[in-house]
């Protein structure tokens, strides 16, 4: 009879938000892995019903303090979709620069404050800061640059108030936007240093095997819009999302788990974007990836921290490119005439695909809303990963095993506050 061991962690810190995960082991065999979620996730969908579609970006921005721009962008994409609005190039550029700012902020937070301590053997960023203050300050400076982009274009750093359906309340002048050039150039240098820093870490082994899903836009690394594609031939518009992906209610969880309609597990986020669109990264980002030995595609879950760092380089580079070529728009937004119908919007939140669907009536009132955050979509893939990691490292002592499990969960930068509350990690050995 195999030995029974129980490992319990009351609180898994350093993921965005909180949730619960438990693992049951019999000897070296994993019997059960689950991600449990306690928060009523549908609160915001209910809140949106009966509100004006113009309020959707402001309300949904409140779902997450780390990725408000993602929520706003998927929301405005969906409302613009149903109303038949196309944005002129300058407004699209602004939307993309703003989103780059959010990627910089979110990725810097995750790489430096949440994930790097795992690789370097620290309990968290505070301990890391005591030994490597220069590295942590570099991360904070990067994050601050992301904040500056949000503050300048979005109106304020968290929950930008300048975003509206059809564009912005006010568009910055060329001169105003150029204020971001110097900080972004410094951030780009810091991002290159981040790639070199993370590439030198030691990586546990775990290859992602499931289907990879990301947005795609010809000629660019898709961020703020695109078609949904996969490495197994999927290629659909946002309107077909519900035909190909389902959310299942799982007894133990208040959140819904997403899977492909044929039952398959899939993964979205940096590894998927990198595998599917890596060739569209800027030359500088690709060169950094090459030097770091992580050219796309990369299916190594633990090297996601390096991929995130390459995306940091790209986000700085891309924002600088767009600022350089920015032409002030004739008007800050395209006026909206509500049209009764259903609109679909997607964008690439820092942690993966974010889907919104709204049904509105002829005066623009929201009749129902559906929001599928990236962490719900990645939940099954995270569980698969955890199962594989536990099997591979079952012989480690309890503390070491717990540490590698937490590190594995953080590979996906789960934003559990979008989908959940409290994350406890419990490993039970039978």
């Amino acid at each position: 009879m195999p030995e029974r061991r129980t490992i319990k962690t009351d609180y898994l810190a350093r993921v965005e938000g909180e949730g619960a995960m438990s693992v049951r082991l019999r000897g070296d065999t994993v019997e059960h892995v689950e991600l449990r979620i306690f928060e009523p996730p549908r609160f915001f969908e209910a809140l949106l019903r009966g509100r004006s579609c113009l309020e959707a970006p402001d309300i949904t921005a409140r779902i997450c303090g780390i990725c408000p721009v993602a929520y706003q962008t998927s929301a405005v994409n969906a409302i613009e979709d149903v109303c038949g609005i196309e944005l002129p190039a300058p407004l699209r550029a602004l939307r993309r620069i703003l989103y780059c700012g959010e990627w910089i902020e979110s990725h810097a937070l995750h790489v430096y404050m949440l994930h790097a301590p795992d690789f370097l053997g620290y309990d968290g960023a505070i301990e890391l800061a005591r030994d490597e203050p220069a590295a942590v300050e570099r991360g904070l400076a990067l994050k601050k640059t992301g904040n500056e982009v949000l503050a300048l274009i979005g109106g304020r750093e968290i929950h930008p108030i300048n975003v509206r359906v059809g564009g912005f309340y006010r568009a910055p002048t060329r001169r105003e936007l150029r204020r971001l050039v110097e900080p972004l150039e410094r951030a780009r240098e810091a991002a290159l240093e981040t790639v070199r820093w993370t590439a030198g870490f030691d990586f546990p082994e775990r290859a992602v095997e499931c289907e990879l899903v990301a947005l795609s836009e010809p000629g660019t690394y898709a961020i703020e819009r695109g078609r949904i594609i996969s490495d197994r031939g999927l290629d659909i518009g946002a309107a077909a999302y519900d035909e190909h992906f389902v959310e299942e209610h799982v007894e133990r969880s208040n959140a819904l788990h997403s899977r492909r309609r044929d039952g398959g597990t899939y993964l979205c986020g940096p590894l998927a974007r990198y595998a599917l669109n890596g060739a569209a990264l800027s030359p500088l980002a690709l060169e950094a990836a090459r030097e770091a030995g992580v050219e796309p595609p990369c299916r190594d879950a633990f090297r996601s921290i390096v991929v995130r760092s390459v995306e940091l380089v790209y986000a700085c580079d891309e924002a600088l490119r767009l600022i350089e070529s920015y032409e002030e728009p004739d008007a800050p937004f395209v006026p909206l005439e509500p049209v009764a119908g259903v609109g679909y919007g997607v964008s690439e939140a820092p942690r993966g695909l974010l889907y919104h669907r709204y049904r509105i009536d002829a005066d623009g009132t929201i009749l129902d809303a559906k929001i599928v955050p990236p962490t719900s979509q990645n939940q099954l893939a995270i569980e698969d990963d955890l199962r594989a990691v536990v099997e591979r490292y079952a012989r480690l002592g309890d503390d070491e095993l717990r540490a590698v499990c937490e590190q594995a969960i953080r590979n996906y930068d789960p934003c559990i506050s979008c989908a959940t509350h409290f994350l406890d990690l419990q490993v039970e050995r039978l």
Partner: protein
Amino acid sequence: MKTVVIGVGNAYRGDDAAGLAVAERVRVHAPELDVFVCEQEPIQLLDAWEGADLALLVDAVSSGAEPGTVHRLDATVEPVPAAVFRGSTHAFGVAEVVELGRALGRLPERLLVFGIEGTAFSAGDELTPAVAAAVEPLAAELLAEAGCTSTR
């Protein structure tokens, strides 16, 4: 003397909004004060209190005390207990940001941290009565600390 008042919380999560409510009352009473509101990701607090002689920070807490109880500590001389200041939905909580600031030498001259004990933190909840009742007295205490006389 540069003073900043900081309210931390989430407006959509019941008693977690207590810090925001206090900051809002301070703003009403003393428009001349620097008031900073942080709705979730708190690492930006390092910038919010940069260069301040006095920072007064309010957050909701969950420590098992009576609802509405106000905890007070001087973070410049003692650590902020992470077990208490983790009621918010963000994993990188106020306690960690303060300790990160301490590790990097980025705390203000003086940092007073106030925690209002809450009980309901679910999405969509309102402030509970005990917590709502604690808001105005704590705002008055902050104004006194900041050397302001309440205007109303």
